[in-house]
C-alpha cells in the first residue's frame, strides 16, 4: 500500500526547464506545492571539462532514469520499433536546463498562426499533405509579456532587433516586437564569428548574435560566462548558465511554499470516478507514496508526458488520462535540421580555433526562417535558422570528416588532423517542423522499463515538406561558409531525427477538444484540474529552440491557475 502524504494544493511532476519555472509564480501566490522530481540536486563541483564524461558517455545526470527508459522508434506504423542509442535528457532538479545549450529564442508571430498565414499568402494547397497543422490558440502578442518575464527572471543575454516596432539591425530584424531590450548584452563575438557575420553582410543577409540564457555580466548574484568550451551537455561550473536549479527553484523555495521530493519517480497520476485528478503515486527509495493534490501539473518532458498519461488508466479513463478523444501522443514531431541528418560541415584553409567558447556563442541568420522570405514555387512552407558557433571538444575535433583529402587512418590521416582539427566546424540548422497524421507516440507493446512499464514508442514517417526545407537551407549555409572562405563543404542528406531534445506534441494545445489534449491555458480539456507543461503542448516548432517558449507558456499556465484557482481546483 502506498504511504499517503499530507494533501497539497499543487503537485508538479518534474522540476526541469518547465516545471522549475511554474513553481515560482505558484509559490509567490501562496499555494502549497509538492515538487516531485525523479532526479536529485547536482553539485557544480562535479561539472568538469571532460568530454568522455559529458559528451561521449553522457553521464551528466543525477540518476539514470531517462537512460533506462529510452523510447523505441520505427519509421512506419507497420514496422517493429527499436531502441536507438542513448537519449541526453537530464534527471535532476533543474532538469535538462542543467546541461542544455541555453539558446533562448522566442518564436515568431508566424509560428503561432502558420495555418492561416500560409493559406492567406499561398493558398490552402500549400499546407503540407497529411499534416495536422492548426493555428495556436494564442498569438505571439499574448505570449510576449511572459517571454519578457522569463527573460528577466532567468537572465537572457542578447540584442533586441525589434523593440515595439523599432528595428535595430544589430539584433534579429525578423523577430516579433518585444517590449524592451534584453537584460544583458549578447555573448561576445570571436574573430571567427565576426568573419562569418561579415560574410553574411556581404551576401546581403542580416546576421546577429543570438540570445542565450547565459549571463554575460554579473546578474542576480551569478557571474558572467567564462567561455571555457564545455557548455554543451555539461553543467555550468560557475553558474553563469541559467538552470532552474539555480534561478527560479531556489526563489520558490525561499517562499517556504515549495517542498521538493527529490529522487522520486511518479508512476501514475490518480483520478476519481468523476475524472478529476486526485494526486500522484510515486516511488522513492523503494517505497510507494501517494501525494494527494487539488491540481496536478505534468512537466516530465514530451515523451514522459504522453507516457504517464497513457499509463494512468482508471475507471474514468480507460484509454489513459485525458485521452477520451484519443489525442494523447498525437501531433508529435521533432525538429528537423541538424537534429536530424541535415549536417553542413565546412573546412577552412586557415585555423578558425573554435575549441573554446560555447554552442550559444555565434552568429545567426534568420533571413530564411519561417516565412521571412517568399516561398512561391519552392514546394515547402516554413524555414530554417542558420547558426555558426564555437565549442569543439578534442575527440570530436579529431573525429572530423576528412573531406576526401586523406584516408581515415595511418600516417596521412595523422598529418591531416594535425593540420585541420582546428580548421573545421559544423553549422547548427533548425527547421520549422509540423505535425502529421502518421507521426505519433504510444506505448511500446514489447519493450519495458525497469519497473516493467512499457516505454514510449515513436512512430515517424518521411516528410517531403521538411526535406525540401532543410535542403534549401543547407544550400544557403554552403553559400555562407564559402563566402567566408571555406574550401570544402559537405551536406548530409536530410532526414528526421529519431529521438530529439526538441520533441513537440503529444498533448497539443488548442481550442478544439477533438484534436487537442490541452486548452488555450495548458489545462486538459477533459480533466480540468490537470495542467500540462512543456513542448508537448506546442503545435509548431518554429525554426528555433523550444525552451524559452516552453518557459513562457509554463509561467502563463501557472499564472492562469493562480487567477482561476477556485474554478480549476474545484
Amino acid at each position, binding site marked *: 500500500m502506498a504511504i499517503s502524504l499530507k494533501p497539497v494544493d499543487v503537485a508538479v511532476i518534474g522540476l526541469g526547464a518547465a516545471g522549475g519555472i511554474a513553481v515560482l509564480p505558484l509559490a509567490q501566490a501562496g499555494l502549497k506545492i509538492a515538487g516531485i522530481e525523479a532526479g536529485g540536486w547536482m553539485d*557544480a563541483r562535479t561539472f568538469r571539462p571532460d568530454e*568522455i564524461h559529458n559528451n*561521449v558517455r553522457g*553521464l551528466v545526470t543525477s540518476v539514470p532514469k531517462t537512460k533506462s527508459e529510452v523510447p523505441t522508434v520505427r519509421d512506419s506504423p507497420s514496422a517493429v520499433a527499436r531502441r536507438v542509442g542513448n537519449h541526453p535528457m537530464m534527471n535532476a532538479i533543474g532538469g535538462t536546463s542543467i546541461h542544455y545549450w541555453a539558446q533562448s529564442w522566442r518564436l515568431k508571430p508566424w509560428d503561432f498562426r502558420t495555418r492561416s498565414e500560409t493559406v492567406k499568402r499561398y493558398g490552402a494547397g500549400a499546407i503540407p499533405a497529411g499534416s495536422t497543422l492548426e493555428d495556436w490558440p494564442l498569438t505571439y502578442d499574448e505570449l510576449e509579456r511572459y517571454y519578457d518575464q522569463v527573460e528577466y527572471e532567468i537572465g537572457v543575454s542578447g540584442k533586441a532587433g525589434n523593440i515595439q516596432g523599432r528595428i535595430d539591425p544589430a539584433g534579429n530584424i525578423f523577430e516579433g516586437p518585444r517590449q524592451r531590450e534584453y537584460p544583458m548584452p549578447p555573448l561576445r563575438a570571436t574573430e*571567427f564569428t565576426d568573419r562569418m557575420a561579415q560574410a553574411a553582410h556581404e551576401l546581403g543577409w542580416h546576421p546577429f548574435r543570438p540570445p542565450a540564457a547565459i549571463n554575460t555580466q554579473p546578474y542576480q548574484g551569478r557571474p558572467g560566462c567564462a567561455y*571555457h568550451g564545455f557548455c554543451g551537455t555539461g553543467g555550468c561550473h560557475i553558474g553563469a548558465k541559467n538552470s532552474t536549479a539555480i534561478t527560479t527553484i531556489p526563489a520558490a523555495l525561499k517562499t517556504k511554499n515549495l517542498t521538493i521530493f527529490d529522487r522520486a519517480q511518479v508512476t501514475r497520476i490518480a483520478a476519481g470516478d468523476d475524472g478529476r485528478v486526485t494526486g500522484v503515486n510515486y516511488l522513492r527509495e523503494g517505497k510507494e507514496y501517494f501525494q494527494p493534490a487539488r491540481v496536478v501539473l505534468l512537466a516530465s518532458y514530451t515523451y514522459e508526458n504522453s507516457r504517464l498519461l497513457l499509463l494512468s488508466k482508471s475507471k474514468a479513463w480507460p484509454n489513459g488520462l485525458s485521452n477520451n478523444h484519443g489525442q494523447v501522443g498525437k501531433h508529435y514531431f521533432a525538429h528537423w535540421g541538424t537534429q536530424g541528418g541535415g549536417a553542413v560541415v565546412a573546412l577552412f584553409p586557415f585555423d578558425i580555433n573554435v575549441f573554446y567558447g560555447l554552442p550559444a556563442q555565434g552568429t545567426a541568420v534568420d533571413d530564411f526562417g519561417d516565412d521571412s522570405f517568399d516561398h512561391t514555387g519552392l514546394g515547402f512552407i516554413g524555414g530554417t535558422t542558420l547558426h555558426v558557433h564555437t565549442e569543439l571538444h578534442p575527440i570530436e*575535433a579529431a573525429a572530423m570528416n576528412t573531406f576526401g583529402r586523406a584516408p581515415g*587512418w595511418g600516417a596521412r590521416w595523422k598529418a591531416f588532423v594535425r593540420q585541420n582539427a582546428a580548421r573545421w566546424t559544423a553549422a547548427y540548422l533548425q527547421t520549422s517542423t509540423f505535425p502529421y497524421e502518421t507521426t505519433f507516440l504510444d506505448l511500446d507493446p514489447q519493450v519495458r522499463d*525497469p519497473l516493467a512499464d512499457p516505454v514510449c514508442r515513436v512512430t515517424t514517417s518521411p516528410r517531403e515538406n521538411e526535406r525540401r526545407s532543410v535542403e534549401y537551407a543547407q544550400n544557403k549555409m554552403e553559400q555562407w561558409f564559402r563566402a567566408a572562405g571555406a574550401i570544402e563543404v559537405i551536406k548530409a542528406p536530410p532526414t528526421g531525427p529519431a529521438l530529439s531534445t526538441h520533441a513537440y506534441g503529444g498533448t497539443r494545445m488548442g481550442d478544439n477538444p477533438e484534436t487537442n489534449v490541452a486548452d488555450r491555458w495548458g489545462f486538459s480539456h477533459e480533466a480540468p484540474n490537470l495542467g500540462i507543461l512543456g513542448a508537448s503542448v506546442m503545435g509548431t516548432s518554429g525554426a528555433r529552440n523550444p525552451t524559452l517558449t516552453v518557459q513562457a507558456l509554463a509561467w502563463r499556465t501557472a499564472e492562469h491557475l493562480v487567477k482561476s484557482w477556485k474554478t480549476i481546483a474545484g
Partner: protein
Amino acid sequence: MQPDDQDAPQLSRRTVLASATLVPVAALTAAAQAPSTALSTTERQILDAFVDRLVPADELGPGALACGAANYIDLALADALAGEKATLAEGLAAVDAFARTQHGMPFPQLTPDQKDAVLTEIDEGRATGFTNPRAFFARVRRLTLEGMFSDPYYGGNKNFAGWDLIRYPGPRLAVAPEEQKMSALPKPLHQSAYGSKFNHGH
C-alpha cells in the same frame, strides 16, 4: 590511474546505463573498484598492434600506442564499456585468424605493410571471419580516437601527446577573448580536468 587524479571527486566512470533502478550516481561510485583491465595478454597484443597502425608514431609525434589508446580501451572494457567486451574480443581474435590465413603468422608479428594490408581488408569489408568487419573496424578506430584525445584521467592521451598532435590547447576554467582568436591558438595547458587546478567549487 593517472598521477594527478588522486584528488578527483568520486565521479562515476561506470556505466549508469545498465543500472536498473534509480540509483544516485554517487552511490554507484562509492562501490567503484580500482581500475582493472579486461583483455587477455594475446588480445591486448593484437589490439596494441592494431592501434599502432591506425595512428603510427612518426616525426609528428607518438602514435596511438604510445599515447595509451589501447590502455584506454582495455580499461574501458573492464568498466564503462564492459558490455562490449565480448564483441571486441571476438573481433580481435578474428583479426588474428585472418592475418594467419593471409600471411601465415599472428597479426602482431606481421611487418607494418602486412598489417596495413590486413587492416585495409577489414576496413573495406572484405576480410572473412568477422560478423561485420566494417563495423568492427569503425568501432576500434572510434575507441582509439577516444583513447588518444580524451582526458588522461581515462588512461590514454599520455603526456598530452594526443592534444598536442591536433593542437588542442587543453581544458581551462576560464577563457579570455585572445584565446579564441583564429590566428593564434593559445599555448597548450597540459592539465587534466581531474588535476588539482580544477578543484573549483562553491
